[in-house]
């Protein structure tokens, strides 16, 4: 075997009192794409930042091809060795798509002058390779999330580096886009490019990687060929315990005699038209579809984040107020919004306060928040949802992604909603936390709450009594519990079933 492409030897990294990495190691050999998995907060992204020279390790060493890593200041040397799609967006919103593709390496026309003409042409070419149908001159900030992610991927792959790191590249993509990414990765692998791939979707690991390294609690646990590590063993390595994975619902648990809780009729809005549907008490309804299907806009309309242009929604006999989250909450609608960083959490505030933000008015008289009641509420939420935190007073931005997501869930549940709308509830959440979150859904469903899960991840949809698939802004298909994966996937992707 040739010299390893990249090696991390005994690296450690602390942030204040948090140990993000302790004596971690990683060896990637050329031609063998490597998966890096672990629970939220295991230290994966931290390791990525060390491998790409954004930060220096506190201890240990990074080596490329047997040579010591270049000094941090020499960004060009790092860029020649490794390209990366970071977990956090590195799009500059006010620049054009074209310029984002070539930040700090814009094509020049002589005398150091940037050639915008060439930049546009080369940008267009790059986007075409990926089938990204956006204008090179569009403002990157105006792009949809998935397009932005594709731009980042296209940029990272265009650096010409022989080693490419992808940190949760698929979290924002729909199935079609993921397939395109994988096809491209395979082509690049054939031409000799090696990937380090991070994902919480374990099946993807098996699909594109040959080797896997598991991190747990900042430490290296195991490195092995994926073939030697079946899914159950992989999960065990990640969580430190044997976990039985949920089976999913096989048939609907609500009969036709159960009263309807939410009746939507003829609803039209930003990206959907004339949608009608009904959800019964205690029913879990899945809403799937590609990113352009309008499912998110529909969900956001139900919870008051958007105002639909027509139609109505009735909850337990009363019309749902639109465009006003406060009134939607009062009417009994709870919500986990699509992006916890954007609409979910106030990073500087504590876990307790974030979890009680929707019920601040109920924690004391005259709007005063009684600290004891806030604490009691928060402790209950922490216990119920198994949130890993020092306590209710810890700022929520100190939590790992999965635990942050649980806090958003706690916030939605705090009002004891009659209708719970979960948009991408497990995005970026590790397998174990995913189980926990979905278990909560099952518990509140049993209490009579109706739940709508908006996702196109099959694991999220398994607890559903019914799954509706949206295409081009309207409901295209309905699958009762017990659906087959490939049928659902085909429908989401718009491939007609035979």
């Amino acid at each position, binding site marked *: 075997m040739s010299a390893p492409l990249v090696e991390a030897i005994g690296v450690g990294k602390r942030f204040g009192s948090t140990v993000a990495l302790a004596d971690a190691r990683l060896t990637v050999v050329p031609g063998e794409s490597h998966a890096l998995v672990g629970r939220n907060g295991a230290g994966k992204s931290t390791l990525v930042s060390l491998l790409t020279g954004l930060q220096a390790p506190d201890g240990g060493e990074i080596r490329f091809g047997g040579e010591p890593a270049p000094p941090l200041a020499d960004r060009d040397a790092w860029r020649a060795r490794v390209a990366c799609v970071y977990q956090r967006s590195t799009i500059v919103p006010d620049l054009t798509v074209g310029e984002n593709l070539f930040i700090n390496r814009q094509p020049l026309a002589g005398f150091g002058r940037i050639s915008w003409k060439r930049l546009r042409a080369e940008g267009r070419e790059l986007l075409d390779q990926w089938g990204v149908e956006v204008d090179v001159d569009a403002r990157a900030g105006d792009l949809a999330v998935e397009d932005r992610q594709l731009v980042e991927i296209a940029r990272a792959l265009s650096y010409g580096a022989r080693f490419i790191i992808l940190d949760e590249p698929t979290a924002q993509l729909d199935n079609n886009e993921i397939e395109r990414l994988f096809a491209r990765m395979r082509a690049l692998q054939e031409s000799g490019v090696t990937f380090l791939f991070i994902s919480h979707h374990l099946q993807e690991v098996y699909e594109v990687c040959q080797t896997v390294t598991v991190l747990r609690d900042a430490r290296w646990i195991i490195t092995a060929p994926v073939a030697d590590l079946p899914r159950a063993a992989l999960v065990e390595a990640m969580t430190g315990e044997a976990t039985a994975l949920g089976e999913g619902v096989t048939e609907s648990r609500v009969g036709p005699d159960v009263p309807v809780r939410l009746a939507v009729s003829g609803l039209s809005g930003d990206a959907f038209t004339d949608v009608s549907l009904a959800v019964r008490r205690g029913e879990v309804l899945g809403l799937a579809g590609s990113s352009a299907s309008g499912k998110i806009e529909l969900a956001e309309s139900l919870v008051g984040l958007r105002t639909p242009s027509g139609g109505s929604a009735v909850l337990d006999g009363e019309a749902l107020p639109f465009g006003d*989250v*406060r009134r939607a909450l009062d009417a009994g609608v709870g919500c986990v919004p699509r992006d916890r960083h*954007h609409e979910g959490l*106030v990073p*500087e*505030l504590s876990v307790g306060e974030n979890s009680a933000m929707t019920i601040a008015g109920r924690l004391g008289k005259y709007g005063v*928040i009684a600290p004891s009641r806030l604490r009691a509420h928060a402790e209950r939420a922490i216990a119920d949802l198994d949130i890993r935190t020092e306590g209710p007073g810890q700022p929520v931005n100190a939590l790992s992604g999965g635990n942050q997501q649980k806090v958003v869930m706690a916030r939605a549940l705090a009002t004891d909603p009659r209708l719970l709308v979960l948009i991408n509830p497990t995005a970026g959440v590790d397998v174990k936390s995913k189980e926990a979150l979905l278990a909560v859904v099952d518990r509140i469903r049993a209490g009579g709450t109706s739940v709508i899960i908006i996702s196109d991840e099959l694991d999220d949809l398994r607890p559903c009594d019914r799954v509706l698939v949206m295409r081009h802004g309207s409901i295209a298909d309905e699958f009762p519990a017990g659906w087959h994966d490939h049928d659902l996937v085909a429908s989401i992707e718009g491939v007609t079933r035979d």
Partner: protein
Amino acid sequence: MRRLRELALVPALVALIVLGAFVNENFLSYANIISILGSSAALAMVVLAESLILITGKIDLSLESVVGIAPALGALVVIPAASAGFGLELPTAVGLALIVVVGALVGAFNGFLVVKLRLNAFIVSLAMLIVLRGLLVGATKGKTLFDMPEPFFALATTTFLGIPISVWLAAAAFGVAGFFLRYHRLGRALYAIGGNPAAARAAGIRVDRVLLGVFVVAGALSGLGGLIQTGYVGAINANQGANMIFMVMAAAVVGGIAMDGGRGTMSGALTGVLLLGVVTNLLTLAQVSSFWIQSIQGAIILVALMIARVTTGRAQE
């Protein structure tokens, strides 16, 4: 740990007080302490107002102009035309009420431009600062207003337990605001909005309404600050409040209120105000050369900032 940043200034403040006690034996006298408090009361009100706005992630520079225009309009409707008034000679109570109302209205106007029209708060309030300064000159025709009835001065001239009412008022305002920000959901809503407005909205907080309310309250508080100032100096000069915003921002930020919203406490802001008050008093008592006093004052602010930075160990960006 979290409490620490609120108290970041306390060491600097203590050091200054000890220094002051050495420099001049009168520094720690009862009378001098009252003087420091009395002279800081108006600033304190405006710092409180600005802090509320900063916590929501906005800014209002025009509060300094409110300190001038609000009491001036209140006075102009009360005093006779012979004293440069409008000649309306409305009752004193109406004039006093008008001060707060004008403050609130200016706040509402700024709030409207920022919240509804989504204009940048810094620049809108900068423009308003210029407009209001101009209006003050225009409304008073540049005159200094002297002949107000006694109640216009009462906040600074009347004392309770030997301490001016203005100081009690400022203390009460800080107490109420502090409690409110810590324990009331509306107060907490300010932090949520400053920390992440989208999340606040998704959690059912009426972001626009709360923001508008904060602008209005801040305007009203600044009007009150202007009234205190009027009592303290015994007149309304067409320059009243001019350039005060520099000190207001300095006090707030030295006191740990984050410029980008979501962070800061009333106790911190209060130490910021006191620090500036102590510095000014101390430099005067020490009879530092009048040519250098300003730069020394600025330097002390700068050092206090660095101390706050070091003790909290946090970047201030």
